[in-house]
């Protein structure tokens, strides 16, 4: 099977190029395994990866034009020659490795932690199964970045628009019955950019490898803002 990968090394290359490798396909092979075969052929090829089962979120990349996690993407499902590129819209450090600083910065900006103001009980803070169910589809985010780097609004205003991953986490805490910082969270999202640059293009939903729905979460935040403003 033929795999064409994006190559760029800042010390030696003026501009990026695509390089094609021949890899033997095995039944059930995931793209990560194919990239590891390339790495065995050419140790200068760089990409991030770790768990191999879609929970660590290291190996997000753009494959045949769509963002995905290499370790849970079967090569059999991909049209050949497979085109593997780094995430779009992010500065490339080397080959498939991109600079995700801004993505993490936006995550930190939404106060991604539970805020509790009441005194803490000796035991757990009670939460009904129904309230706990509201966190499903939110807490599972692995911060791989597939969604935010597929979002045109994030490409255009990465320093102002929080992007789908961070906003999904903003809603994860707003939706948590234990959290006591709703007003501060909503106030911090005011303005034309942080939240409202989402134009419901829904690329994020299409690419999320965990099947999560940031667009819906953003909609919930907007609804809550509206309720609060009345």
């Amino acid at each position, binding site marked *: 099977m033929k795999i064409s990968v994006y190559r760029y090394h800042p010390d030696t290359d003026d501009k990026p190029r695509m390089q094609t490798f021949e890899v033997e396909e095995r039944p059930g092979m995931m793209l990560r395994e194919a990239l590891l075969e390339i790495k065995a052929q050419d140790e200068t090829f760089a990409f991030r990866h770790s768990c191999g089962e879609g929970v660590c979120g290291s190996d997000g990349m753009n494959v045949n034009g769509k963002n995905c996690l290499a370790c849970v993407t079967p090569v059999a499902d991909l049209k050949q020659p497979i085109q593997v590129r780094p995430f779009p819209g992010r500065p490339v450090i080397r080959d498939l490795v991109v600079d995700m600083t801004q993505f993490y910065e936006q995550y930190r900006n939404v106060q991604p932690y539970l805020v509790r103001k009441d005194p803490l009980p000796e035991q757990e803070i009670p939460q009904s199964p129904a309230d706990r169910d509201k966190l499903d589809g939110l807490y599972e985010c692995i*911060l791989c970045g597939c969604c935010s780097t597929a979002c045109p609004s994030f490409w255009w205003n990465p320093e102002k628009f929080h992007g789908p991953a961070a906003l999904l986490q903003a809603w994860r805490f707003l939706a948590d019955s234990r959290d006591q910082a709703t007003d501060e969270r909503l106030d911090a999202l005011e303005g034309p950019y942080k939240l409202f640059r989402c134009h419901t293009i829904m690329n994020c939903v299409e690419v999320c490898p965990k099947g999560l729905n940031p667009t819906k979460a953003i909609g919930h935040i907007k609804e809550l803002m509206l309720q609060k403003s009345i």
Partner: protein
Amino acid sequence: MPIPHRRFDALILGAGGAGLNAALRLASADLRVAVVSKVFPTRSHTVAAQGGVNAALANVLPDNWHWHMFDTVKGSDYLGDQDAIEYMCREAIPTVYELEHAGVPFSRLDNGKIYQRAFGGQSQDFGGDQAARTCAAADRTGHAILHTLYQQNVRARSHFFDEYFGIDLIRDDEGVVIGALVLDIESGEPLVIESKATLIATGGYGQVFRTTTNAFINTGDGMAMALRAGVPLQDMEFYQFHPTGVAGKGMLITEGARGEGGFLVNGDGERFMERYAPRALDLASRDVVARSMVTEIREGRGAGPNKDHVLLKLDHLGAEVVHQRLPGITDICRVFLGIDPAKDAIPVFPTAHYAMGGIPTDPHARVVAPARHGPEEVVPGLYAAGECACVSVHGANRLGGNSLLDILVFGRAAGTDILRFVAENPNHRTMRDEHIEPALARMQRWERKGEGESVHAAKADLRKLMEDHCGVFRERETMAEGVDKLKALRDRIDGVRLQDHSKTFNTARIEALELDNLMDVGMATLMSALHREESRGAHSRVDFPQRDDEQWMKHSLYSREDDRMDFKPVRTKPLTVESFPPKARVY
């Protein structure tokens, strides 16, 4: 160009659960904390823990910490240190509540309390009925805990060095650990971090085996750092093979699958655990279940066309239980096997999973090593917690649900003791160039150019060797042969060369440095296994099938110098309760 120095009160190597819980404790007390991680913190392997964390909350069935302690001592095959085990089981309860308060989205019971499920080796009333002690966030408990701890560290403003690789510890003339040399992976430049106290929290080393549940990053970096700093590794022969790794692939299927009511069948469709553990059945200890599976396969009762695995059945539980309680497992089965576990059985085989051994510490997470005054002298300024450490709470076999507990309790304990240590030792000690020299030499060794074998080829040979010579069942002949081969491989490593000598994000260089680490921990494992002539917990010797408390109720210590083996006694005296004397282990 001189190497830049940064100074912090505390340095933490590793950003999994142990490192982050220690960092949180320290940053919340306003210490300047540097957390160094070779991956972005939420990529640490804690993220892959599935089933849950043990604590005797008694939310589902009656329970108390003392029963938890008994199960852990018995599970350890009486090699665990009972003072540390008592501490961990007592601390488990406030620790889980603290995590919940920090935001972990635990699954809930109808009364609003934390959901707890049954796990292997758990009992009520010191060996009675099955207990339900494992606190779970569906089957993504590690993910939920790791993200929460990272989030709370964001709040506490811990200082992160993301994608920095630890080269080696730095010790001064008096042997005090005064920091570490690290490598900025992105720039390829070295950096010295000076610290008053240093915690190793770098996790396990499953990558030393060919088939493993562990991630690519689990290469024993901190353990090997300790070895190179002259600290021995303890009980390295005890490596856990998890009964239910996906056969041939290695992905973990949580013990929680059996906790929710799943069971194993052989190629004849027989529920074979009835013969091996009539009472606990599929929820016997992991070492017991793994051995039973391999025995079934060896005796020709495996499943599949090659009769080389057994099957985990969940189809009788109903789609709702499987999909709701085990959504992560459902995903893994769908993606990697193309099956729905609510309908089809999962092919499983015991898979390299967890190191019971590691860097010897006391219950305050202080690293201890043999010195003038005895086998457990504190190494000043050095701490270790989590899978890389050996307290020892797991002894010869770890119970499911006790690893998340270990990282949290002893990560926190490390933080607490570092607070004390830094208060008592408020100044940085003087670091001179010659203190840094050995660490620099290790890095520069890989600068040698020319033709040579590749890192990739040497690593593949190592992993195959360890699998062939140090698996579930062991005997002298195969292990001695393994040691010879491993020594030959160690000599070969000197001829391995990097072809890529560039600076920017050179992953080949990182993998070469990791290979050094894997070689060291591999040798520690095989040497320790060869020496222990008894069967205990996960260490099963075909040639010595019985446990031998008279000769071998002691911890092993492997030192890198001359591959030397030493031993030290087990701490059988708990903190406040009566000791549990060794008994035959029946499930």
